[in-house]
């Protein structure tokens, strides 16, 4: 890990890793799609719509994975002062937010044929919505603070506060849900998951994970370059000011 703390070495590593990651992701995606549409059987209750699960569930997992990553990166910024920690956190936020949005939309599209409405306030979708709001807050904070040092620390604090709150929010939403819907327990997965569905689900989950890592590494690279550009532009201004005196 100390060797990765050096931005230049990270850029070098990223450059070599990205093509492989991209190729692997594309292949696994093709395999996953094939399994999802041609191998996995239709559900005995839901029919063909169960196939939405193969994008919805991995997206939801990655949404949570993204925030976990941000939480760890936040610790990295605040406690271990790792130089790339805030870059990692900043790069992860939009990616995590996108996966959360995908989980919400696909969940909604899954819900319409199943329950007849595009949205239900069940515990899982509601928690996912709150997670989306937490991501938006992080992104908004990053945008609002100009000075990089403060932005990194502020976002890390917010990230940790959010991470600590997520179990509490989840608990309260679960409780709230049982309060208002004691009779019907809606489970998106359905009562059983066929083992042939597990294969498609697993492949799609790995695909989405690789996709996250790929996009994350690219975004981190872009962010490191952006900071270098900023530094050099500042130097440009300084040189011009010096030249005039």
């Amino acid at each position, binding site marked *: 890990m100390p060797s990765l703390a050096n931005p230049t070495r990270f850029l070098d590593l990223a450059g070599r890793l990205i093509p492989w990651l991209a190729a692997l992701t594309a292949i696994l995606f093709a395999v996953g799609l094939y399994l999802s549409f041609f191998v996995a059987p239709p559900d005995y209750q839901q029919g063909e719509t169960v196939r939405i699960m193969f994008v919805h569930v991995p997206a939801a997992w990655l949404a949570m994975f993204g925030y976990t990553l941000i939480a760890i990166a936040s610790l990295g910024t605040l406690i271990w002062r790792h130089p790339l920690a805030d870059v990692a956190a900043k790069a992860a936020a939009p990616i995590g937010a996108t996966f959360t949005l995908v989980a919400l939309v696909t969940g909604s599209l899954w819900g319409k*044929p199943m329950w007849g409405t595009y949205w239900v306030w069940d515990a899982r979708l509601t928690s996912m919505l709150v997670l989306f709001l937490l991501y938006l807050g992080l992104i908004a904070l990053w945008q609002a603070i100009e000075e990089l040092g403060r932005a990194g620390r502020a976002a890390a604090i917010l990230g940790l506060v959010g991470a600590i709150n997520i179990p509490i929010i989840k608990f309260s939403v679960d409780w709230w849900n049982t309060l208002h819907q004691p009779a019907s327990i809606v489970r998106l997965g359905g009562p059983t998951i066929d083992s042939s569905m597990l294969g498609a689900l697993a492949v799609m989950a790995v695909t989405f994970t690789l996709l996250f890592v790929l996009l994350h590494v690219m975004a981190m690279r872009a962010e490191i370059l952006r900071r270098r550009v900023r530094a050099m532009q500042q130097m440009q201004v300084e040189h011009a000011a010096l030249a005039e005196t």
Partner: protein
Amino acid sequence: MPDLGPHAAFILAAYGFTFAAVAALAFFIVADDRKQRQLLADLEAKGIRRRSANTAGASKPARGRKP
């Protein structure tokens, strides 16, 4: 494509949205990456060197660390 049943539109919409969202995200990240590399190349062409460009350990001056 096997018969996707009466709710085929929802299934295709779900996969379609997933693909579109991921593609848009990837597009923005790649575009950003390209733009920064272009800006960096322009600045280096003008002869501006990063303060720590000569040392192996690159710190980011913008973060306010004492050099």
